[in-house]
């Protein structure tokens, strides 16, 4: 995404990006490409709601790069607590136990997952970049090492998916991660634990 220099206080919302470099930035942004590609595969797999989420995020980021808009980081900060008190933790536990009691792919579970997912995405959109003592630049060796693990994992998962009888038919011989987790997620305790871990991961990410 194109960046302009930092503005002083009161200068925000006064400078716009020129369209040509912004369009180029949107095309070059690998995150937009990854989201679009994942959305296409999810659509082909018959998961309309999932692909809508991915397409929406991709199009919003493309719009952010193309359309003139206020400079990122000049809006109000959106605080995310660094430590959770007992009430949010108890709420997350109650959520996990209650929603875990509903069947997978039910409308109740679907709505219960979409609500925190949408809220987290809105927070991520509005939030300023990390201003703490995080790394300014990572060693290229480290970047390549981690990228290799995740890209290879994604390619292996894609290979297993394409080796299935069809995109919507599971295969024991060529299991995707989803197929491997099915035995855990068929039980109420398993669903509750995974839901709680999912919420915890979301909170961890919003701290970044």
């Amino acid at each position: 995404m194109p960046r302009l220099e930092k503005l002083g206080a009161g200068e925000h919302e006064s400078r716009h990006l020129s369209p040509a470099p912004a369009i180029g930035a949107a095309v070059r942004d690998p995150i937009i490409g990854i989201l679009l590609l994942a959305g296409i595969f999810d659509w082909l797999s018959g998961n309309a709601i999932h692909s809508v989420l991915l397409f929406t995020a991709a199009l919003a980021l493309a719009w952010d790069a193309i359309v003139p808009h206020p400079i990122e980081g000049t809006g109000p900060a959106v605080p995310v607590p660094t430590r959770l008190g007992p009430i949010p933790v108890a709420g997350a536990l109650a959520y996990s136990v209650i929603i875990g009691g509903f069947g997978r792919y039910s409308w109740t579970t679907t709505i219960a997952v979409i609500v925190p997912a949408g809220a987290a995405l809105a927070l991520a959109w509005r939030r300023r970049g990390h201003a703490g003592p995080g790394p300014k630049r990572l060693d290229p060796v480290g970047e390549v090492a981690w990228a290799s693990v995740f890209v290879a994992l994604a390619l292996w998962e894609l290979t297993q998916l394409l080796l299935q009888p069809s995109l919507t038919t599971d295969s024991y011989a060529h299991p995707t991660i989803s197929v491997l987790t099915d035995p855990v997620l068929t039980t109420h305790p398993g669903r509750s634990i995974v839901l709680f871990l999912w919420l915890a991961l979301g909170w961890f990410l919003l701290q970044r």
Partner: protein
Amino acid sequence: MSSHDVALAVYVLFVLGGLLLQLLSSRDGSRIPSLGSVITRVMRTRSGRVGIVAGWAWLGLHFFAR
């Protein structure tokens, strides 16, 4: 060794590879950053933040939602 076993073994290799990198990152002067540092770095931009959180949201939808 069946195809199922091979697939499982490869998944385990990826997990072990990730754990190894995380362990290497904790050494003094390591050129390998921790996974947390990588995520923090990626999430410095709006594109990175939205991309990572969209991935997390997708996980929840994928495993639980219609």
